[in-house]
């Protein structure tokens, strides 16, 4: 029986064209991804150490396509193929026919389900086959490893099949039980939420494992089990079905089986209908007494109103009818409730830096509300436009409505408006929820205007989407295809555009052009310059689609579009045609205007073309790299910032000194160029006679020849006069000058000499253009490269003077000391001068600032901040004071007499140290809410300490432009900040910070594209110089002692500060540390700085015995393995002869989470495993090796174990960790 039903159902399903449409879409999608990776399209290339056909990569592709919005598409697909397998019998009233036949329940139930789920799986093979074929052309190139069937098959077996089964059985069961697909859609949305939430929660380290197990698709679990894999592991290993991944798969397969079983048990041929409704209306007893018949002539006379007002009555009535139907549906209520739930959850976890959250400022709430609710609105619109358009036909009212004297337009727009009001209500609810959340978090500066603007823009976005979606449903021959077609431009098109690097917002559905996030300082930042044009563009296009849909609006039984067109041809009168023409005209003119603004005025070169140009520039100008050039020794500037007009005028002059040993007669300048550059130069003149050899504005390179050579030791001055002006209305949003909060630095000004930083950095791309591979940085000992510091290639230490002017009411700030300020022509002028040499690295800021002042000894402390952002000013000031306290004592004197922190808009979120000037983003410290818990990190304090440290580490000592120089700037600033934090908050408070740093380092090395390097040779790799640097320096301090380490550091600083060229390098730095390191720990310094070292420390066994004298005898066996990794993570085991901490901890956890150490000592691990015995006075709870995680270890959880538990032993045999699924391979 099963067989017959199965094969009948399968044949029936496979006859549906939709099945092939879905297969093709999935197939084409991954085919395209594969082909793009294989390099068949004109897209840019970036270097990677990982291949695209490893099991891990295939798994990510198969799962990556389950991003939240795509997962809804997948759900629609599964629901439409498989979940109606039985429900359709109810829908078409076929069930009595089947249920009365002598078929078995099992045969019917499983036969129907089995066949459709099998068909669904066939559809999903499209994902796999598409990717296999797509990656074939890339075989043999470095981006692909050798072809291994299992690498494709295993992820498919591990993820796709169970996921399809899970979703299939879930949707099928719900649909069969409730006899409607609605329940399935609701669950699909709940699953999507779980996915989003687990994604958000994993931002918090401690929840990673839990999230990995709970997330239904297994993508979090895959990420979790592979998170610390080195590139080489990713390339060769299969996905290990163990740990979180195993639990995850078991959990969800179990849930699928359970649901399937339950719904089978609950299903019966006699099962009565369980309608999905909230309240059951009380049945009224109908009285049998029927009144006497009236005659028809007794019926009251009525007037039918077919004038404009009658039509309006109809439209409003029907709109209300549709609106009520929608918002009273369970679907809407659940969506709104889920949406609010999501908001509450997401907002808890969002925007955290080292676990510290930000205040519930309005934009933060809105941006997250927008993200969540917009997604919900999208789903709602897609779903309900189908339901609404098909409502008449599904309830067989189509002929009744079709013969009523009501126009197609009224019918169409009632649905359109009903949906619009429904999502309007959704946005309103979300906004109110947002306000309540703000109040709940005790944040009262609620900006209602932002809520209004967000509702307005969302409504326009939503109504464009509604227009599209309703029209598509009108055209579509069935509802499910309609869902799919409406989702195409919203979901698939952006993926395709992204892959092909098509950056065309005229074709990207519902795009609104360039936008800036809302900033408290700078408002919407010009976003609304282009918004109306884009909105009108989309409104008119979709308006046209709607009008077209009205002409083929379904009335009666005609399916054929042509016949429907003919049927309503009478409607297509001149007025209607005129309306359509207007739509087209508006679309074309808006499109034309946008095209003119963005493509004719602005340069919109495709990334691939830009890559090619960059290669050509290098070929043309590389020969000038070795050309001797004079260096900048002094900079004098007059910069005028016109905030309201977005203009900038700079008049400047450089003093150029020939520091070489030979005469220089050719000057090479690099300036802001480009095909359609908004920068213009009026003056570009050395002070001595010269001729122009060549000028290349497209590349921004000008070569001049001096009539008389500049002799060694001689100097000239070079003057320039330049201005910036946005190219058209739409370019204003790209302007570096903004209304309030301009932040510029010297990279907009001309520089001297060939700029190697502009070269293509990706070797894969370089190869394509015949360029030699380029090292990321010069070797640490490259003495030619060390003639430049790593910040500037045309200057060493300079004198700096500037006069800034800005709009009245704003304060303009640059490095240096304010000499005077004055007002002229309704503008405010500021003159700054620097009294000591600085690096060629300076910034200009301008905004309407508030000022908070303080003083530390003779140093002025000033914070320029935006009004309302007072939250953390005291923490910042404290950070500055404590930093100055520590650094001046430990490292050496501060070279300036002031420290200024200056806030800038959140377009970037960093703080950056310029000489005595620290621009600081509004999003990074100003609105951070610092908690009071022992684990809460005072982020503004830390960031401030880090930036102040740069005044020593970068602005006093600067390394050469070679590997490892960031060690003396970034790593040392991290270390300095850590020490200031430790002094202020205690060693215990550092733990969470260091754990985060270790995690970030291990994650970072896992996704390294070029090759990991030891700390000493770090090539500007953040996960090394920040994250590993913190861990290493903090451990080193522990091993050597703070005083000894700082002593070496301060001696190094004294020796190297303000010196160069030739600039110092990390070798000199490490040597100074080595000079204070005892021989016994020399290995440690080498492991930390010169090698990539990873430990696997673990507890093997632990036990204790209570002695008669109430003491406890503890036996602890610990093991330690050490590995040296190469640049791609290939490991070789090293002999362990290392000093490592061991400890035994008691029950008292009041002072530290892991307990008070009963024993804590540093031992020497001279064999792989070693047993220790101690006698302790208190009952021990846990014990372990390196319990404070000073050494880098990928499985820190097994460093300690509780007495009584069986310790988790590490799997030391790397090759044996993979469980292979054997499928005929």
């Amino acid at each position, binding site marked *: 029986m099963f067989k017959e039903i199965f094969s009948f159902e399968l044949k029936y399903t496979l006859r549906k064209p939709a099945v092939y449409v879905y297969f093709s879409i999935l197939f084409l999608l991954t085919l395209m991804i594969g082909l793009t990776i294989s390099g068949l399209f004109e897209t840019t290339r970036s270097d990677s150490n990982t291949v695209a056909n490893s099991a891990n990569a295939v798994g990510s592709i198969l799962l990556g396509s389950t991003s939240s919005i795509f997962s809804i598409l997948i759900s629609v697909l599964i629901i439409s193929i498989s979940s109606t397998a039985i429900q359709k019998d109810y829908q078409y009233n076929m069930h009595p026919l089947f249920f009365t036949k002598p078929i078995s329940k099992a045969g019917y139930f499983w036969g129907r389900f089995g066949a459709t789920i099998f068909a669904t799986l066939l559809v999903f093979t499209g994902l796999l086959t598409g990717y296999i074929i797509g990656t074939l052309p890339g075989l043999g190139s470095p981006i692909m490893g050798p072809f291994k069937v299992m690498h494709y098959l295993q992820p498919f077996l591990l993820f796709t099949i169970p996921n399809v089964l899970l979703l299939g059985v879930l949707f099928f069961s719900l649909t069969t039980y409730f006899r409607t697909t609605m329940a399935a859609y609701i669950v699909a949305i709940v699953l999507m939420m779980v996915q989003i939430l687990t994604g958000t929660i994993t931002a918090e380290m401690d929840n990673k494992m839990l999230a990995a197990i709970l997330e239904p698709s297994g993508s979090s679990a895959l990420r979790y089990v592979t998170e610390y894999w080195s590139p080489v592991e990713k390339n060769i290993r299969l996905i290990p079905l163990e740990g979180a991944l195993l639990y995850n798969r078991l959990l969800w397969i179990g849930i699928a089986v359970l649901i399937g079983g339950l719904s089978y048990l609950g299903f019966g041929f006699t099962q009565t209908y369980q309608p999905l*409704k909230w309240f059951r*209306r009380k*049945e*009224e007893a*109908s*009285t049998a*007494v*029927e*009144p006497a*018949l*009236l*005659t*028809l*002539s*007794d*019926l*009251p*006379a*009525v*007037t*039918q*109103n*077919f004038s404009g*007002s*009658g039509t309006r*009555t*109809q439209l409003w*009535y*029907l709109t209300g*009818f549709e609106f009520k139907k929608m918002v009273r549906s369970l679907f809407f209520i659940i969506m709104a409730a889920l949406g609010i739930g999501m908001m509450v959850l997401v907002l808890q976890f969002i925007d955290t830096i080292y676990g510290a959250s930000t205040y519930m400022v309005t934009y933060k709430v809105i941006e997250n509300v927008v993200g969540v609710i917009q997604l919900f609105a999208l789903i709602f619109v897609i779903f309900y436009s189908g339901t609404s358009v098909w*409502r008449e036909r599904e*309830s*067989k*009212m189509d*002929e*009744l*409505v*079709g*013969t*009523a*004297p*009501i*126009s197609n337009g009224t019918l169409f727009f009632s649905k359109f408006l009903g949906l619009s009001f429904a999502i309007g209500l959704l946005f309103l609810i979300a906004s109110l929820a947002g306000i309540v959340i703000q109040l709940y978090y005790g944040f009262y500066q609620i900006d209602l205007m932002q809520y209004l603007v967000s509702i307005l823009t969302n409504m326009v976005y939503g109504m464009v989407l509604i227009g599209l979606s309703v029209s598509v449903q009108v055209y579509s021959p069935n509802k499910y295809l309609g869902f799919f077609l409406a989702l195409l431009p919203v979901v698939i098109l952006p993926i395709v555009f992204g892959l092909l690097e098509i950056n065309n917002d005229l074709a990207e559905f519902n795009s609104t052009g360039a936008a800036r996030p809302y900033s408290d300082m700078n408002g919407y930042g010009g976003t609304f310059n282009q918004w109306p044009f884009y909105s009108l563009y989309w409104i008119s296009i979709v308006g046209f689609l709607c009008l077209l849909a009205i002409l083929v609006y379904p*009335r*009666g*039984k*005609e399916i*054929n579009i042509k*016949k429907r067109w*003919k*049927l*309503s041809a*009478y409607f297509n009168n001149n007025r209607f045609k005129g309306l359509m023409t207007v739509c087209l005209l508006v679309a074309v003119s808006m499109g034309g205007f946008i095209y003119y603004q963005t493509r004719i005025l602005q340069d919109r070169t495709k990334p691939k073309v830009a890559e090619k140009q960059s290669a050509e520039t290098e070929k043309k100008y590389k020969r000038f790299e070795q050309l001797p050039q004079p260096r900048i020794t002094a900079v004098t500037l007059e910069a005028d910032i016109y905030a309201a007009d977005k203009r900038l005028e700079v008049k400047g002059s450089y003093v150029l000194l020939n520091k070489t040993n030979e005469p220089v007669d050719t000057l090479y300048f690099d300036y802001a160029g480009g095909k359609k550059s908004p920068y213009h130069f009026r003056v570009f003149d050395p002070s001595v006679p010269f001729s122009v050899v060549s000028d290349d504005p497209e590349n921004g390179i000008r070569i001049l020849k001096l009539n008389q050579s500049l002799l060694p030791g001689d100097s000239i001055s070079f003057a320039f006069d330049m201005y910036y002006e946005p190219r058209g209305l739409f370019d204003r949003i790209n302007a570096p000058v903004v209304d309030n909060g301009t932040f510029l630095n010297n990279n907009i000004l001309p520089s001297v000499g060939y700029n190697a930083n502009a070269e293509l950095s990706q070797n894969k791309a370089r190869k394509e253009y015949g360029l030699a591979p380029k090292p990321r940085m010069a070797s640490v000992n490259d003495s030619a490269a060390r003639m430049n510091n790593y910040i500037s290639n045309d200057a060493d230490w300079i004198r700096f003077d500037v006069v800034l002017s800005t709009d009245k009411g704003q304060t303009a700030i640059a490095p240096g000391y304010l000499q005077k300020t004055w007002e002229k022509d309704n503008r405010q002028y500021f003159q700054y001068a620097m009294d000591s040499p600085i690096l060629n690295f300076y910034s200009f800021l301008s905004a309407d600032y508030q000022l908070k002042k303080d003083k530390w000894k003779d140093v002025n402390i000033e914070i320029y901040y935006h009004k309302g952002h007072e939250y953390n000013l005291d923490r910042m000031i404290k950070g500055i004071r404590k930093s100055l306290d520590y650094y001046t004592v430990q490292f050496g004197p501060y070279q300036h007499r002031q420290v200024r922190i200056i806030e800038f808009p959140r377009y970037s979120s960093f703080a950056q140290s310029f000489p005595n000037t620290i621009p600081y983003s509004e999003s990074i410290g100003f609105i951070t809410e610092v908690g009071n818990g022992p684990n809460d990190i005072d982020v503004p304090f830390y960031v401030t300490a880090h930036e102040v440290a740069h005044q020593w580490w970068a602005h006093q000592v600067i390394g050469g432009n070679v590997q490892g120089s960031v060690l003396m700037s970034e790593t040392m600033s991290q270390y300095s900040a850590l020490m200031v934090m430790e002094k202020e908050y205690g060693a215990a408070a550092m733990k969470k910070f260091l754990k985060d740093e270790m995690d970030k380092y291990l994650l970072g090395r896992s996704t390294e594209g070029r090759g990991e390097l030891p700390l000493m040779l770090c090539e500007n790799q953040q996960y090394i110089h920040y994250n590993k640097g913190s861990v290493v320096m903090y451990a080193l301090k522990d091993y050597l002692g703070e005083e000894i380490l700082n002593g070496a550091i301060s001696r190094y600083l004294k020796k190297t500060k303000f010196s160069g060229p030739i600039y110092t390098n990390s070798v000199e730095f490490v040597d100074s540390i080595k000079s204070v390191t005892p021989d016994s720990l020399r290995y440690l310094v080498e492991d930390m700085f010169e090698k990539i070292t990873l430990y696997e420390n673990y507890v093997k066994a632990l036990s204790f015995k209570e002695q008669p004298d109430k003491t406890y005898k503890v036996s602890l066996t610990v093991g330690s393995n050490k590995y040296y990794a190469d640049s791609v993570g290939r490991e070789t085991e090293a002999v362990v002869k290392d000093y490592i901490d061991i400890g035994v901890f008691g029950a008292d956890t009041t002072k530290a989470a892991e307990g008070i150490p009963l024993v804590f000592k540093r031992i020497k691990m001279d064999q792989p495993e070693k047993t220790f015995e101690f006698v302790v006075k208190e009952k021990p709870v846990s014990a372990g090796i390196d319990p404070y995680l000073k050494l880098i270890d990928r499985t820190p959880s097994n460093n300690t174990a509780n007495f009584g538990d069986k310790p988790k032993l590490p799997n030391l045999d790397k090759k044996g960790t993979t469980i292979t699924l054997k499928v005929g391979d």
Partner: protein
Amino acid sequence: MQLKIRDLNKVYANGVKALNNVNLTLDKGMFGLLGPNGAGKSTLMRTIAALQDPDSGSIQLGDIDVVNQKNELRKVLGYLPQDFGFYPKISALSLLDHFAVLKGISNKGERNEIVTGLLQQTNLFEARKRNVSEYSGGMRQRFGIAQALLGNPKLIIVDEPTAGLDPMERNRFHNILSEIGEQVIVILSTHIVDDVKTLCKQMVVMNKGTILMEGTPAQAVASVQGKIWTRAIDKELLGEFRSRLSVISHAISEGKMIVHVLSDDQPEEGFEQTQATLEDVYFSTIAKN
């Protein structure tokens, strides 16, 4: 007001000729459209109701050109299709009000009056708060006719309205219909001969898209009066009789097979002349073609 149908043709994509040169002229009163399933009745009704366009031909209602003035027609049309349903979870009262809006009755007071009146007229007033989707077959049909009567229809089309109704409901329905028939043009499509006999002034028999016969029921019966012969036969012999004579119908009555034969004279020994009925007309017309 008159409904004039001229040379109406319609061929479906699958080649089925649903309307074949249909010509009709209808006056006020009840008009019966009789034909077997698949005769093209529904196509004709839908075409008259402007839910479909004919391939060729014209339909004129008074001075409304139906094919080109669909909206004008809709203003004066009441339509009850053969197969219809209702929105789920909506009461009769609200749904009839909904239809009243669709029909352009925008005055709320008037709408309430007519809706109440019609619900009383169709004996649904007591059940007005119940969901229409939970109505019995007869109530559904009565509700259907109520919505068709909204506005001031000049033309009412009812497609197979009594199929599946019990005799009581059918009677009730007939009463309503016959009253309507006194005032406007009513087209009643049915395959039940009795309906036409009881209700219609005019009738046509239709099959395979073609009008086979046109007239009043009395005229129709007169045309075959004296030509209908009947006899009880053995069931097994039916085939034989059919090949020999023009058997227009056969039915089992009290265990015997009764055949009706159309013939000017007594066809064979054993046949008796019988009073012709409309049914005989219907069957003979279908059989002839």
